[in-house]
C-alpha cells in the first residue's frame, strides 16, 4: 500500500528467491570478483557485436537467476527489464529469448531498482507469482551510444565514470526463504541544471538525497533503521556531494553507513578508473551479487538501495539541455 507521498510498503513482502550476476574482464579484476556467478575474460563473449554481447549478458544473468531460484523458465510469469541502448534492445531481445510476458522500462542506471520495485508491486498486489527483474550494461556498447568511439583518444576528466560491463537479475516470488523486499520509494525527476556528461555523479546526487529524504519522511524512518544505505553509481565525487547534501535535508547520516556501488566495483589500482563505475549494471551487480551475499552471511540485516539514473540522451546534451536525474529506493531485509 502507498504510504506518505511516494512510497510503497509491501505487506506481503516479496522474496528474492534467486539472484545472479554476470560480469566482464574489468569487473573480474575488481575487488568484488568473487561475488559474480559468471565472469567473461573478453568483451565480446563470442558474439559478433558489443550490442549482442550486452544481450548475452542479460540472458545469462536471467537464466542463472531462474536456475538458482530452482525454477523453470515457464514458471516465470513476468519479465521486467531495461538497459541503456536505444529502444532498450538488450532487454527486448532477452524478452524474445525468454518468451514470457515482458515489460520494458527505462530508468537509465536506476533501472535495477525501478524494475525491482515494479516486480515487488506485481507480487504484493497478487497480480503475479514469479517475476524476473533484470538489467545489463556493456562498456563498449554504452560508450558508442552516449559518447565517443571507445578507441578515440580524448582525455577524460577525473569526474568521468567507467561503464560497468555486466548484468544482474533477480527472481521475485511470493513465498520462500531469502531476502525480502519490504518497501520502495519512487523518485521524482530532479534537475539542478548541471550539464556536464563527464560529471554525472554531481548531477545525480541531489536526486539520490531527494529520494532518501522522501523515503525517511514517508516511512518515518531514519538512517539508524538501516545497516547500510547504498547509492547506485554516484562515484567518488557524487558520493562526497551526497554526504554534503544530507545535513541540508536534515538527515543525520553517519559517514560509515553510506556507500556507493560505483566506488565498490573497481579497485583504486585499476587503470582509467576515474571516479568509479556507472551504468545499469553497476548497482545491479553490486547489490544482486555482493550485497545480497553479505545479507545471506548475516553481515547485513536491512539495507536501503538507492539506484540513481541520469536520464539524458546524447541529443539532449548536444542541444544544451541540462541532465534530468532520478533515484529509486528499495529497502531489502533479511532475517534468518
Amino acid at each position, binding site marked *: 500500500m502507498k504510504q506518505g507521498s511516494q512510497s510503497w510498503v509491501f505487506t506481503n513482502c516479496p522474496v528474492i528467491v534467486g539472484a545472479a550476476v554476470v560480469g566482464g574482464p574489468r569487473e573480474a579484476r575488481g575487488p568484488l570478483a568473487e561475488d559474480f556467478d559468471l565472469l567473461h575474460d573478453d568483451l565480446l563473449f563470442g558474439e559478433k557485436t558489443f*550490442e549482442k554481447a550486452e544481450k548475452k549478458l542479460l540472458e545469462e544473468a536471467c537464466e542463472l537467476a531462474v536456475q538458482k531460484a530452482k525454477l523453470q523458465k515457464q514458471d516465470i510469469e513476468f519479465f521486467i527489464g531495461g538497459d541503456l541502448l536505444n529502444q532498450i534492445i538488450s532487454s527486448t531481445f532477452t524478452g524474445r529469448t525468454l518468451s514470457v510476458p515482458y515489460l520494458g522500462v527505462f530508468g537509465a542506471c536506476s533501472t535495477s531498482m525501478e524494475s525491482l520495485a515494479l516486480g515487488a508491486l506485481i507480487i504484493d498486489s497478487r497480480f503475479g507469482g514469479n517475476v524476473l527483474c533484470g538489467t545489463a550494461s556493456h562498456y563498449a556498447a554504452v560508450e558508442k551510444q552516449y559518447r565517443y568511439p571507445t578507441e578515440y*583518444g580524448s582525455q577524460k576528466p577525473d569526474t568521468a565514470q567507467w561503464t560497468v560491463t555486466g548484468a544482474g537479475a533477480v527472481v521475485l516470488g511470493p513465498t520462500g526463504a531469502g531476502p525480502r523486499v519490504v518497501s520502495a520509494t519512487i523518485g521524482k525527476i530532479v534537475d539542478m541544471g548541471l550539464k556536464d556528461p563527464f560529471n554525472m555523479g554531481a548531477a545525480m546526487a541531489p536526486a539520490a538525497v531527494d529520494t532518501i529524504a*522522501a523515503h525517511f519522511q514517508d516511512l518515518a524512518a531514519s538512517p539508524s533503521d538501516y545497516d547500510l544505505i547504498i547509492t547506485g553509481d554516484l562515484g567518488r565525487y557524487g558520493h562526497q556531494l551526497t554526504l554534503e547534501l544530507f545535513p541540508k*535535508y536534515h538527515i543525520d547520516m553517519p559517514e560509515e553507513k553510506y556507500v556507493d556501488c560505483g566506488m565498490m566495483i573497481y579497485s583504486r589500482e585499476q587503470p582509467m578508473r576515474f571516479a568509479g563505475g556507472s551504468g545499469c549494471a553497476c548497482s545491479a551487480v553490486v547489490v544482486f551479487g555482493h550485497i545480497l551475499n553479505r545479507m545471506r552471511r548475516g553481515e547485513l540485516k536491512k539495507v536501503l538501495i538507492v539506484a540513481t539514473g541520469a536520464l539524458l540522451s546524447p541529443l539532449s546534451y548536444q542541444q544544451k539541455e541540462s541532465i534530468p536525474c532520478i533515484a529509486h529506493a528499495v529497502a531489502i531485509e533479511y532475517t534468518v
Partner: protein
Amino acid sequence: MTEHKQRILTQKEYQQMAKANEPKRPVLANCVRAFLVGGIICLIGQGITDFYIFCFGFTEKSAGNPTAATLILLSVLLTSLGVYDHIAQWAGAGTAVPVTGFANSMASAALEHRTEGYVLGVGSNMFKLAGSVIVFGVFSAFVIALIRTLIAMIGGV
C-alpha cells in the same frame, strides 16, 4: 512538504557546491604533457623525414607526404591495438593535435561502426569526429587566404 524540500537548495547554490567539489583540472601539467608528447611525435616525424631523404633520395619538400602517411599508419596501428586512447588520456592535446590525432579519430570511428556494415557503418560514420575538423579547417583556410589576398591587393606584402 515537497515544496519545502525544493527550496532547501536553489539550482544556483547547488551548482556552486558541485563546482567546489569538482577537482581542478591540472591545466599546467596537461600543457607540459601535451608539449612533451606533441614534441616527441614531431621528433619521430622529423626522424622519418630524414630517413626518407637519406635512404630514398626524397627532397625535404617531397618527403612530407610519405612522412605523414607513415605517421598515420602508426597511429591507426596503435588505435587498432587499443593503445592510442591510453596514451591520449595521459597526453591530452599532445596526441590530439598532430596528424596522428586526426588518423585516430577516423580509425576509431571506423572500428566502432564496422558492425553496421561497410556502407552504413564504416562509410557513413568514419568522418563522424573528423568531419568537423575538415569543415572548419577548410573554411578557416579559405578565410585566411581571402585576408591574405586582400592585403596583397591593397599593396601589402
